[in-house]
């Protein structure tokens, strides 16, 4: 554990993120686009470098020394993820290219096999497009029906509506653990029990959760849990799908190729066991190894400390930005991660984002791939600042000052 309290946590880890140490447009960079992707600590960068310098090889089949070491390192991360998620066995951990890929895997490999005409898939209005479109695609093919749980003005699920919508017809409930646009931490355990009662499966999009909180897939009783490495201090291009063995065993592979087969002949091919039957082709070996280093970084830093620090930053930002005339926060749920979406009367998000960038402050503007949610609030998009473990109170001040300066120019 990194020994610090509250705000000094950022100082204890910040020097390990080389990319943060630079000027942008003449100002020291303030990176507040962490919900899009976090920056990477030195140990993650070193793990990738080390892999290519010392043991790059294609994994699993090689009979030679380097292939052996690379395979061990790759499979060790699977084991680490089993512990990280509290899965029952490491075979329930499948490597993908990202959360989007993980969700598509379930939609194709589970949905095409188990959905029948008239079956219902229940989503919420705050899903990322990645947890909407794959279901629309398979629903169209299987003639299944999509039902949507609405959200409240605060940006929380409408629980009464959820109780009405989840019924005997429901085959799958697919929800995000944390909203990328609003930061809302959703009551996944609650909806899990609801899904269980009607015999529906639960798919959780955890892309925005894993950087901020411990996830226990057994406690959530999730059938599937998806996330991306790059939003949790790991490399890009790697994702994880946790799935319960009982379902993964029954699902058919949806991509063919090497590694996923047992035996291939032109009269018929038999498939490998899980997890390999879902990992066709050469995987992103250095990415997985880098993810292993990211898991270590999180374990050393500690979720509790990260959460406490990030909540303080969120609170400081809310308190200061509230003073800006015309400020409207989008998403004011009781339980939130350090994501702050806002709009200012008479100011277009694009203009504000541009002027913040010119002052060295990186935020995200737009609909955040959640157009149905933006439609619900009747807005074209928001400005979103999202805080990570390495952000500081001084950076919150920089954000607020930059917002004030921009607003002065725009209004």
């Amino acid at each position: 554990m990194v020994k610090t309290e509250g705000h000094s946590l950022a100082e204890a880890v910040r020097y390990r993120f080389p990319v943060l140490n630079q000027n942008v447009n003449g100002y020291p960079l303030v990176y507040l686009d962490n919900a899009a992707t976090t920056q990477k600590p030195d140990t993650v960068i070193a793990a990738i470098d080390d892999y290519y310098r010392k043991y790059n090889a294609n994994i699993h089949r090689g009979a030679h020394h380097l292939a052996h070491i690379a395979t061990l390192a790759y499979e060790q991360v699977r084991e680490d993820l089993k512990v990280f998620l509290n899965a029952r066995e490491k075979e329930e951990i499948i490597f993908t290219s990202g959360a989007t890929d993980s969700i598509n895997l379930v939609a194709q490999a589970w949905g095409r096999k188990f959905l029948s005409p008239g079956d219902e898939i229940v989503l919420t209005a705050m899903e990322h497009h990645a947890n909407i479109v794959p279901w629309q695609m398979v629903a169209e093919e299987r003639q299944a029906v999509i039902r949507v749980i609405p959200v409240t003005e605060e940006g929380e699920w409408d629980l009464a509506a959820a109780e009405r919508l989840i019924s005997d017809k429901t085959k799958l409930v697919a929800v995000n653990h944390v909203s990328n646009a609003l930061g809302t931490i959703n009551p996944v355990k609650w909806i899990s029990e609801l899904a269980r009662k009607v015999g529906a499966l639960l798919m959780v999009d955890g892309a925005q959760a894993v950087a901020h909180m411990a996830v226990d897939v057994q406690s959530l009783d999730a059938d599937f849990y998806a996330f991306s490495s790059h939003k949790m201090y790991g490399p890009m291009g790697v994702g994880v799908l946790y799935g319960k063995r009982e379902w993964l065993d029954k699902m058919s592979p949806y991509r063919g190729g090497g590694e996923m087969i047992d035996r291939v002949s032109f009269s018929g091919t038999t498939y490998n066991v899980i997890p390999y039957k879902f990992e066709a082709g050469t995987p992103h070996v250095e990415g997985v190894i880098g993810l292993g280093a990211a898991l270590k970084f999180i374990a050393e830093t500690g979720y509790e400390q990260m959460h406490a620090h990030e909540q303080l930053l969120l609170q400081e930002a809310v308190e200061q930005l509230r003073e800006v005339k015309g400020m409207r926060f989008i998403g004011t749920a009781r339980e939130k991660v350090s994501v702050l979406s806002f709009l200012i009367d008479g100011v277009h998000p694009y203009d504000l984002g541009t002027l913040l960038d010119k002052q060295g402050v990186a935020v995200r503007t737009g609909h955040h791939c959640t157009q149905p949610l933006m439609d619900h609030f009747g807005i074209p998009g928001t400005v979103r600042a999202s805080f990570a473990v390495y952000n500081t109170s001084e950076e919150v001040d920089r954000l607020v000052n930059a917002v004030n300066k921009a607003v002065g120019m725009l209004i």
Partner: protein
Amino acid sequence: MTIEERQQEIIAEFSMFDDWMQKYEHIIELARELPVIDVSKKTDDNLIRGCQSKVWLDASLSEEGVMSYKADSDAIITKGLVSLVIRVVNGMRPSEILEADLHFVKDIGLLEHLSPTRSNGLAAMLKQIKMYALAFSAKAT
């Protein structure tokens, strides 16, 4: 003034500013000066949809055979950039616009606004300006 001379004038104008914020203050001023497009012309047909901001563009050909563009945007910075583009092309013949290399956006350091990550409709607007010129070039000759 030719299109090229107009572009050089804008480049000289922007070279006076020391930093980014001053450049953007100027762009915002230009946006406020841009004649407002008639509401009746802010139709879906005239809408160029960017992912982040919208641009409306309308064009006509005068009796003298020169182009007249009118535009608006929901984002003020986009609108300011649009007003610069219009300053360069308005009153020019369709053939001159078709041949023009509109390099000034890059030269005043605003190329990022044309990049896909910005998705602000400006790049699509530059294309649409030429499309209008092409459509009217037949009439003009």
